[in-house]
Each structure stands twice: as C-alpha cells, then as structure tokens.
C-alpha cells in the first residue's frame, strides 16, 4: 500500500466539510427509516441493523448509526455483488442476499442493496443489513449454536434480484415467505429495509444534483483520503512493534474447547496488520465467523482508540490489513455453520483490545460482559399461531484506565437495547420475574468491572423451545494492569426449587408451562490493583448495596465501621499494608 502524502489543504475545504456532513446525514436518515418502520423486536427495539452507502465501485462512503460491528459487512457484500453482476445492473434493480459464502454474514442477516442511478449512469449503492427474527431452518429464530452445517440453519439466499428493473421477483418473495415461521414479520422488516434504501437513493441523488457528477466523485475521493489520513495519524501514535494477545471461548457446545482466539498486531508507520495465525480451527457448531465479520470486529476495536468523529468509510480500511488462515473459526471454509458467529466476533474485539492495551496503555478497558448471550423462545400461542422471541442480553463494561466499568450497558461493539418487560408480557406467554444487578459480582480493581445482571423468564402456558447461547463461565472476562478477572455467567432452570438445574452455556431445551429460566450475565474484569481503589468509591458501592461489607474486606482490604456508613481507616491501613492482593491477577 502506498503512503498518501498529506495535502496542506483540499481544493475547497469548506464545501468538503459541508458535503461530508450531508453524506453522513443520508446514511442516518436511512437508519431512522428502518427503526420507525421495522416490525420485529430485535430490529426496532434492539436496533440490530446497519445502513450504508457505497460508490459505484463498491467502496463504502458513509455508514449510518447502527451496530458498529457491522462496519465491514456492507462493502464485502457489495464487492461480491459487483463480481457476480458486473454488467447486469439496471435502474430499478434491488438485490438481496444472506449467503455467508457470497458476501453475507449469517443467514438471519438479510442484506438489501439498491443500485443508485442518475439517469442511466450507475453512481452507487444504498444498502441495509438487518438481523431478522427467523430465516427457517431447524431452530426457530435461526440462531442455534448446535447446528453442524449451514443447511440446518435456514434458507440460503445467494445474491439475487429482489426487484428486476422495478418488477418484484414474486417467486423469490413467495419462497422466502414460505420458508420462515413468521412471514408477516420477516416480510415487514424487509419492507423497512427497502424503504431505507429508497431514502438513501433519494439522498444521494440530491447530493449529485447539488455538486454535479464530477464534483460528487471528487468529494468522495477527498472524503476517503481525509479519513485515511486521520486513521494513519491515529495509528502513528502507537510505538511500532508487534503486540499479541489471546483469549478463549469456553466450548463449541459439543464438548470441544477451549477455542483459542489469538491476534498479533504489527504496527509500523501509520499502518496496522492484525494476524489471527494461531487461532483455533473452525468448530463443528455454528460459532464460526466470516472473514467480513472478523474484519468488522477489528475495525470496531481500532475505531475505539481513535477520535470518534472519524467517518466510517473505505478510507478507514486502507491502512488496516486483517489476515486469518482459512479454516480457522475466524475465517472458516465454505458451508460452515455460522448462525451464532456473534459471540466469536465479540470475542475478537476483546482480543484486539487486549493486544492494544500493550500497544497503547491507558486507552482500552478490561473485558466487559462480552455480549455473549442470546436467549430465544419459540412456541405457539393458545390460538395455535406460532411465536418466536429472540433477545440479546447485555451486561456492562470492564473497568477502564481512569474510571469504573459502566453497570448496565451494551458492549461497545453491539450497542443493542433491551426489550421492555411490559412489551414481552403483553405480546408473549412469558413473564419476566426479575431484572437487576447482582451484588458482589464483577472483577475487583482500582476501577471495578461491571456487575452481573440477572434476567429471569417464566413460561406461562403451553410449551416452548428454549435456546441459549452464552459463554464466559470458565474463561472469565480478563482484568488489566493488576485488576481481577470478572465473574462467571450462569443459566439456571427452575432456580430455588428442588428441580433446580444448572444448564450448560449452549443449550436447547423444551420448556413446559411454569418453568423458569434464569440467566446471570458475566461480571466485567477490573482495571488496576484493587488495593489502590479509593476507599471513598468502595464506601459508595457498599452504601449503594452493590458490594457487601464482607466482600470489600476480602477483595479490597477495606474495613467498614460497625455503623456500615463509614470506613475504619486504621484497620483498612492494616489490611492493605499486610496483605497481598488476594487473587492473582491474570495480566
């Protein structure tokens, strides 16, 4: 890759700044359209979708606010599309795909790509990817970990035309509708995606009108160059060298594990290569990622160490190379099952963070809850109509170099919402029995990791198929700079009864009316030596009933006075002076 010489000024810096904002607004407008018109809870409440604009060559030129970790997905999809349909793209065409071996990620993610034409000139693409509530296959929701090939995972859609010169491909729509369990929801969400790409098309044409075809093309070149320059400036802050880290997923759900994720970051002169050599081979279950998802995860982690106003476009990718041997869990061979790849991608982000901690101390947090958990219920209402409910459970963040991890927030790479309890109870035969923090969890540290969150469902009537994907029971969220590891996640069937049963991290189970399933999310890792934690912060945690007096004595060497509202300084000094940090940190 050649180094671009920074220019002292653009031809027209003012117009550039104006156009940069306008382009971003178009992509955001697309995202708002999806949010307001989507049907499934996962899209409209959890916001599990992304929007983007590409130029005619398939280069990403703007990304809407959505899920960060889908950053690299749209350009790969469009590249496959261009390779397949080079001379067969016409006004009025709209493409659809989900095939992981042809630009897709996992089957529930449907991509809708609308080519944009100015008259007869092809000028770009408006694209939207969204995680649908069902895609057929052997398990409702299509997220099962325990599928062993892609044919079990649902309907595969290679890159096809959903609209051909304005005419809907009825065959395709009918096949799609017939192969999913909840066709109204899936086709409704597809409409939302189509509407978003139409909004994107209108927005790009408006800009072309304003700046002219050549003017717009120049602006795009400058925008990508500008982004690249800013990324190189950021990367140049890192001392050149090779930084490695490894983390693990407990198991593939078939008894095989641990699964190693290993990355080496080579940094030199404003460039970075992330090499996943040494990562475990692909697994039998559906935890396999795609290369596009692995790349997205790397970009996401790197974006977090940069200033957050850098635009998301192809210029961002230029100074960054991602390598992974074919046949590993982060770059599997054709036909591998991939439905549960989210867990692997999120672990890739955390692994890259671990390596960056050495490259840029003080810039990355300890591992958080990890966004590992997916819970789905599938069954039938009393009237026989089927329901599928999918929810992604979030916890919080690991301790940070200068402050605690956030209790109760989505992981940075996912940024999903929870589903309101009242919405669940109004629309499903489920009750949420509790939703809250679990005291005395999370990793201790000068800056502590987030608390675990407990979320507990009861099936009210009939039967339902439960499916859970989770992790972080054996390999806990890592601490950094002397901070302790986090605490494990748990899945418990019928807790606090004589039938109580601890379920594995990955599980499918038929539930009967009255059954309760409790999920406790992992607590985040701590940052820094717990004995350096300011006793004032510890007292606040105790007063807030997030940590108990007994726990802080053991983990932080802090003794409270018997009134429980003030610190016994003398005893605290003794405890902290004599003892070692009680658990060996893993940094």
């Amino acid at each position: 890759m050649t180094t671009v010489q920074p220019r002292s000024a653009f031809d027209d810096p003012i117009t550039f700044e104006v156009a940069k904002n306008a382009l971003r607004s178009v992509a955001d407008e697309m995202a708002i359209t999806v949010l307001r018109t989507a049907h499934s809870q996962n899209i409209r409440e959890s916001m599990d979708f992304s929007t983007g604009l590409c130029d005619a060559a398939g280069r990403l030129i703007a990304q809407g606010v959505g899920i960060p970790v889908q950053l690299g997905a749209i350009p790969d999809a469009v590249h496959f599309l261009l390779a397949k349909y080079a001379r067969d793209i016409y006004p009025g065409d709209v493409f659809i795909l989900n095939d992981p071996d042809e630009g897709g990620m996992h089957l529930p993610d449907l991509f809708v790509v609308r080519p944009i034409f100015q008259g007869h000139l092809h000028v770009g693409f408006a694209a939207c990817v969204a995680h649908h509530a069902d895609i057929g296959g052997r398990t409702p929701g299509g997220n099962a970990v325990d599928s062993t090939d892609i044919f079990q995972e649902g309907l595969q859609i290679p890159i096809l035309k959903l609209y051909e010169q304005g005419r809907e491909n009825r065959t395709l729509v009918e096949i799609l509708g017939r192969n999913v369990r909840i066709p109204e929801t899936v086709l409704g969400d597809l409409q939302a995606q189509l509407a978003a790409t139409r909004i994107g098309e209108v927005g790009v044409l408006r800009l072309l009108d304003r700046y002219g075809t050549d003017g717009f093309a120049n602006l795009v070149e400058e925008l990508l160059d500008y982004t690249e320059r800013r990324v190189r400036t950021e990367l140049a802050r890192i001392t050149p060298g090779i930084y490695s880290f490894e983390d693990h997923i407990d198991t593939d759900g078939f008894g095989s594990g641990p699964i190693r994720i290993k990355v080496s970051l080579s940094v030199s002169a404003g460039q970075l290569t992330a090499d996943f050599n040494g990562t475990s081979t692909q697994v039998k279950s559906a935890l396999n990622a795609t290369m596009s998802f692995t790349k997205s995860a790397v970009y996401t982690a790197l974006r977090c160490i940069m200033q957050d106003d850098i635009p998301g476009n192809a210029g961002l990718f230029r100074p960054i190379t991602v390598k992974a041997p074919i046949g590993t869990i982060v770059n599997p061979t054709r036909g591998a099952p991939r439905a549960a790849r989210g867990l692997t991608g999120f672990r890739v982000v955390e692994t890259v963070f671990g390596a960056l901690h050495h490259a840029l101390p003080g810039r990355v947090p300890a591992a958080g809850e990890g966004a590992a958990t997916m819970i789905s219920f599938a069954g039938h209402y009393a009237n026989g109509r089927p329901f599928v409910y999918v929810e992604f459970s979030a916890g919080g963040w690991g301790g940070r170099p200068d402050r605690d991890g956030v209790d109760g927030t989505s992981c940075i790479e996912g940024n999903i919402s929870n589903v309101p309890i009242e919405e669940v109870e109004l629309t499903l035969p489920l009750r949420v029995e509790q939703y809250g923090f679990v005291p005395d969890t999370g990793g201790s540290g000068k800056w502590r990791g987030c608390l675990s969150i407990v979320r507990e469902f009861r099936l009210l009537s009939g039967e339902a198929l439960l499916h859970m994907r989770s992790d972080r029971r054996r390999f806990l969220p890592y601490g950094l700079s002397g901070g302790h590891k986090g605490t494990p996640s748990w899945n418990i069937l019928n807790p606090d009864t004589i039938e109580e049963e601890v379920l594995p991290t990955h599980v499918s189970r038929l539930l009967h009316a009255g059954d309760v399933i409790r999920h406790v999310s992992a607590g985040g890792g701590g940052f820094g030596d717990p004995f350096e934690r300011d006793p004032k912060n510890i007292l606040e945690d105790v007063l807030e009933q997030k940590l108990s007096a007994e726990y802080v004595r053991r983990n932080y060497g802090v003794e409270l006075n018997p009134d429980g509202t003030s610190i016994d300084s003398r005893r605290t000094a003794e405890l902290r002076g004599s003892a070692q940090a009680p658990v060996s940190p893993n940094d």
Partner: protein
Amino acid sequence: MEFHGKRHAFKLKERLEVPLPDNNARNSNQPEQADLHKAVIGVDIGGTFTDVVLLRRDGKEFVKKKIPSTGPRFADAVLRGVDSVLAEAQVGAADVSMVIHGTTVATNAILEDRGARTALVTTKGFRDVLEIGRLRHPSMFDYFWRKPKPLVPRHLRFEIDERSDGMGNIDRHPTEESVEALATILKDRHVESLAVCFINSYRNHMNEEFVVRLLRRFCPDIHVSASHEILPEMREYERTSTTVVNAFIQPVVRSYLADLVSHIHERSIDCPILIMQSNGGLISSDAARLKPVHLVESGPAAGVTAARHLAERIGKANVIAFDMGGTTAKASVVENGQTFEADEYEVGAGMHHQGVLAKGGGYTIRIPSIDIAEVGAGGGSIAWIDEGGAPRIGPHSAGADPGPACYGRGGTDPTVSDACVVLGYFSQTALAGGAQPVTPRYALEAINNCIAVPLGLDVASAAYGIYSIVIANMSKAVRAITSERGRDPRDFTLVAFGGAGPAHAAVMAREFGIETVIVPPASGLFSSLGLLVADLQEHAVLSYPLRTDFDPELITRSFCAMEERIARNMISNTDEPDVVRMERYIDVRYVGQGYALRIPVLGEVADSTAILDIRNRFELEHGRVYGHRGDTGQAIEIVNLRLRAFRQRMVASPFAADSGLLGDGHAKPIHSDPVRRAYFGAAHGHLDTPVLKRTALAKAAVTGPVIVEDMDATTVVPPGYSAMLDDVGNIVIAIPSSGQRGNN
C-alpha cells in the same frame, strides 16, 4: 380593533367544542369593551436576561423590557421588569388579567443536580430498571462514556411485593403492613419526594393507586408522583424515568413557583399565573406544581409558539422556526398552523438532532414536547482545524467569558461571531445595542492565525468558510425536522430569531430552496411574545393496547370519559374570553410495528365508515412518512387514545402595526457607519453595503447587499436577495432560486 376571532380557523372541522364546565354569563366570543384596557404580562427568565413584555388586550399598547437576570434572587429582576412595563404602559396592577411565565427552572434542576432527595418504589424484582435503562450508549466508539447517574440512587430504590400481568390481571396484592413499614424507612431516610411505578400499572393501576394512597396518608410531607397519573403508557423504563424526573424536580419547582406567585401578589397583581409547558400550551401554576415534568422544555416552546402565532398573523400555513443563540441553534416546524410534538426527550443528553438513534445520553422523559431539533452551533461556537486538516466548528463554545475574540476579553479562539465581524456583517464598534464593545482587530487575528494560515486561505475566505460551515451544521437541525420527517423544506417559510439567527438565515434558506425568510421585530426577545399568545392546554392518554377490533362504541365511550375528566381539570378563573376545544387522536400501527402514527379523529367515531376513514388516513400518513404502505388488509391496531384540550384564548396579537412592537423603547441609539465593506464569498468579493435601521427599510423591496441593524440582532441580506418591511414590521427576505432543485 385588532382581534382575531378566527385563530385556528383552518382547524374548524376537527374542532369539538364543548361548553365550559362552569360557564358563566359571558358570551365567550365577545370580549366586553370595558376589559380592553386590561393587560397581559409575559415573563421569560434566561441565564443572562429576564425579558418582561406587556400587551394591552386591545392590542394598542406593547411594552418590552430586558433586565439583567438576578440569579437565585430571580424575582428581583422580574419585579423590576414588571414595575417598569406597568409604568411605561400606564397600566395599574388591578388591570393585569394574567401573568404568563416561561421557565428553565425544571431543566436547570436536572442539569445542575439540584433536585430533591428522591426515592422510588417499584415492583419486587425491578429495583434496577431505572439504572439499567435501555442499555444503549449514545456515541458509537467512545469507551470513556459516563452513564448519567440515576436520579434515585440504588439505596433509595425500594421494592413492594405486588404484581399484575400484561393483561392487567392482578396476581399479588400489596399488603398495608408492607407499605407502612416502607413509610417508616422513607421518613427515617429523610426522603423529600417519591416516585411510585409498578410493572404493568399502565394497564391496571389498582395496586399502584392503593400503595400511593397509603403513602400519601403515612407520609403527608412527602410529595408522591404516581406513574399512572404522570404517564399511563407501556414501557416500564420510560414510565419509571418520567415519574422519577417529576418527583426529582417537584419540590424545587413548587417552591420556585410559590416564590414567584407571592412576589407578584405583593405588587397587588392578583390574577391567574400561568406557566408554559413543553408542548407550547399553558397550565395553571397549581397544575404545574403537580406535574413539573411538563415544564422541562418550557423555554424553547415559547419561541416556537411565537412563530406559530406570527405565521397565522401573516397568513403563512407552514413555517420553520429557526432560533440561533450563543451556543445552540434550534429548529422546529409549524405545518398547517400546528406545531408538532415529540413524545420522548432526553434531558441533559446534549444535542439531539439524531433523536432516536443516539439514545442513553440523558434522562428520558416521555412527555409531549414541541419537536425541536438542536445542534451545538451558535455565535460563540469555536472554529478549529482537525487532524485530517479539515476546518470544523464547535461543539465547544467561547461562552460568555471570555466570549468571542472580538469582545477583547482575552479570547483567542476564532468564533462564528468573529467571522461575522471580519466579514463586515456585524457592527465594527459594538453589539447588543451598544452594551458590548467590539474590536475587529482581535477577530481578524484569531481567524488569521487559527484558520486562514493553516489552510492557506486569505482571511476573508477563511471567515466566509466559518460562516458557510456553521450554516451547514445548523442545517442538520432543519433537515431533522423536515426531510427526515418526510417534509419538503421548500414548502416552508423560515422565521429567524435569536441573537444570531437573522445573520445566517437567508443563506441557509437558499441551501434548502426556501423562498422566503422572515425576521420578526424584537427578534431578540421573540420567545417572550409566544407567552402572550399561547393557549391553555391539557393532555390525556389512555393506553388501549393492541386492539385490532376497533369497536366504535368502546372508542367513543373512552373518549367521552376522558373529555369529562379533562374538562373538570381545566382552570377557568380568568376573565379573558375563551373557547374550549377538544382534539381526539388515535395512535395506530400495523400489527407488530414498534412505533405508532398519531391519527386525528375527525368527528364522531359512529360506525364502521369512521373506522375505515381512520384506516385510510393512517395508510396515507404511513406512505408519506415512510415511503411505503402495508398490503391491503394488513392488520392494524390501536396503541393509545389521546386527547388534547385547549382553552383557546381570544387575545389580540402583538404583531400589529399599532402595538408599539417596532419601537426600541429607551434603548441607546445605535451609532454605525451608513455603509460598510462586507464580504460575500468568492463570487461577489467585497462590496460596499448599506447599513440600515429596520424602520428605514421601505415597503418596497430593497436589493441586497444590505445589512439591517436592530438593537439586539443583525440581519444580513446578501447580494441578489431582496428585503422589505411588511405592515407589522417583519423584514421579509426574498431568496433567489438556487437554480438546482433536487428530485425530493
């Protein structure tokens, strides 16, 4: 006589007029001649200035005062202003018929963390719903984000063993003993205010009501905010958070209002005192004390209300209210004479033009407020060069201290105001009616050093660049409330106000293909005019979850019950003539969708024809907002029934030729050059530009370049644009066509 009996005439068809509950002998539509000497006072308290305005009911006398605000002793400035307007208008205290107030007290109590020691009582198992929130964080890649601290700490969040299900059936009743025990704890912990929110209480509030009644009995000194009274809508986090915000600010707002009322009464002004709500409607100060969460956007709402009134006064159905001040720019639309409401808002989240996309940055309140988009761009916004070499404006602001470089108070960062000075738009000697001296040299140096030299531009181009970029940034706010809501900005007239709005509006309007910009007189205190003309407004909602059967009889019965209740609530102790009007709405969505569209109900819901009409209008609106309609026969469902009740005041307009609005009062005359060199971009270069006072503008159009200087704002009319004065003193700028029209 300026009297507008036909306000909202375009809404007549939707009107459902009901008799006043306590209708007296007066014919509502005919004010008595004897009352016309009476006057209404508007009081708008801001951080820097307190604006007090007075309008006599016959519209023949308008007086305005800008008084420096007096901080926590806010009433001092109010009383000075009130005394002064009464004296100048020669109106006696006994003849003041109404005092109307717009306030930032509710917002500031939250932003400055000055609320009460608040506790929350919730259902067993859900103590942390308030703190967990909806999990999203507002910025995509910022790992150093701080989550807003919950307004109720965990140790003051208590659980009661009770439960109802999603259908409203009660599974467990709370016991009186558990509430009594809780009451003791609340008193022990010195709780000052209390929020109660139970799971599914939006559907059946029996348990919640039981507990609230007991707590009010056991703890008579603690104000209790009940979620089913504040927001009976589904979604436990949003309902809890809204109720908690209400409880948090209630004691502060209560004592503030009591203070204000007693001071005003001290002046023997013994009339109703009304408060502006976030939705632009007024409520009594008594009602405001109970539901202060409705006041959070009180200040900005007044400006949009003023714009709506002005639009009607000059016969424009569609306007964009554009308010640019020192640190932020705000935009809002008035369409067919109506303002638009947003259902949800985050207090303290900073800029919210991204609205639904960037959630989690503040305290959620789900209360109708005028839909206002805001961006961090104002006269004080700082220009800088980023690491990629691109020029940027804001979000940092030079604030009031040191202020822009041209103020000469030590500021070295170039600001938008500095650019306006360098460009020759702003006075080269003083701003704010002479109160703020200006040194152009400092502005020139700041822009040259920080922008022009690094970019290799001359200083005029750099200043013009700042001017252009800030306009582009502000256009995000305009886009957020027009094109992102499916509206074409070209169908609107732009009304520009605030200290900096009139200097930037014309060029911004051209970006959107808007044809006309209006700069109203007294644009610096335009918001306070909104207080004078606002109506009383109450709002009720009935959660009506997921009903697809659309039973006309049930719908009608539900609406009637709401109307009876709300009519009882609306205060009527004013002697102003008025008319009560009810508007019915149904929130409708396709089955399975997350967001509903609000569809007005026209006339009675008598039969299936009315239902079909609702369906048709829902589909039309869906197509308009989202670009597609559902399949024929796709099921739709009702989410909520809503009622808006207006007590419509039949008042005169301050925007009348004989009201005195155009006068500058006793302000010092402005000394300015009759002609200035001003720069209008590479196409025009530097031009000799006449500098006029507003009153010197003719009724015939003057062609730009022209600069119009008012006491508190400067209007820029670039070359090729033309300006004239209309009969109420507005500057009307005609925008030349941009020559390109997009196909949207």
